């Protein structure tokens, strides 16, 4: 199949690829966003737990 012809979609290329392009873009962005948010929360929580553990440890010793 001719690639150019496929992309042209009988004159409807803009509408079709516009639709799928935006949908794909939004879904990829949302996916990345959500994964990043989880990882950020995970890191911050771990750091916080470590910090508090250290503070508590000092409190007991001192």
């Amino acid at each position, binding site marked *: 199949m001719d690639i150019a012809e496929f992309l042209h979609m009988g*004159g409807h290329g803009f509408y079709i690829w516009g639709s799928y392009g935006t949908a794909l873009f939004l879904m990829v962005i949302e*996916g990345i966003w959500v994964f990043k948010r989880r990882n950020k*929360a995970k890191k911050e929580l771990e750091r916080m737990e470590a910090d508090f553990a250290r503070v508590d440890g000092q409190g007991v010793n001192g």
Partner: protein
Amino acid sequence: MSMTRRIPWMKYASASNFYPLADRLVPIFMGLALVLAVIGLYLGFVVAPIDYQQGNSYRIMFIHVPAAWMSMFIYLLLAMYAIISLVWRVKMADIMAYSLAPTGAMFTFIALLTGALWGRPTWGTYWIWDARLTSELLLLFLYLGYMGLYSAIPDRQRASRAAAFLAIVGAVNVPIIYFSVIWWNTLHQGSSFSFSEGASMTDAMLYALLLMALACWAYTIAVVLRRAQALILERKKVALWASQISKK
């Protein structure tokens, strides 16, 4: 507890059991979404023949229809979780409801946008105030209202309960809105063009549509579980902070 053994899914109503389960499920559903979408798009773009009336533009259907379905399913699901969180005060239900909302709003937006892009070659205009597009637009406002109310209330307990209540009121209103818009449409004799889906659907089109819908489901499950995990951790952080402050 014997309760948990009899209803195993109740086990996952607690965040500590939910989290590791989500960790296992997210990659599976992400992969599933990818595979289903690739096969669905192959069927939809390569195998399915060109439509003699609409030309190739009908192929937008394979994203438009699943997105429109998802936008409605997700709102129903959100309302169900809202009922569970409001009546039985299950914290995970609130987290799930809140995690569903952005994805639902996104699918509503995709449905609107692809509907407009499909409308242009089919009707000659990007937007008509037809019953389906109009109620889809109102659904977007319902999602925005839910998220807006949730984030406007500083107290989390109140935010979750108020937003859940709003979601339920909205769900009761969805059919009323839908039928009133249809009625309005017939009154004003607007163009009541329907995408001629069922009429000339080949098997390939049907399977493509089905696979794309399943792909959207799998994507939704993966993303929503991930967001729920993020929320659990963020809330845990706040709780930890509060407990540390109170110790001093």
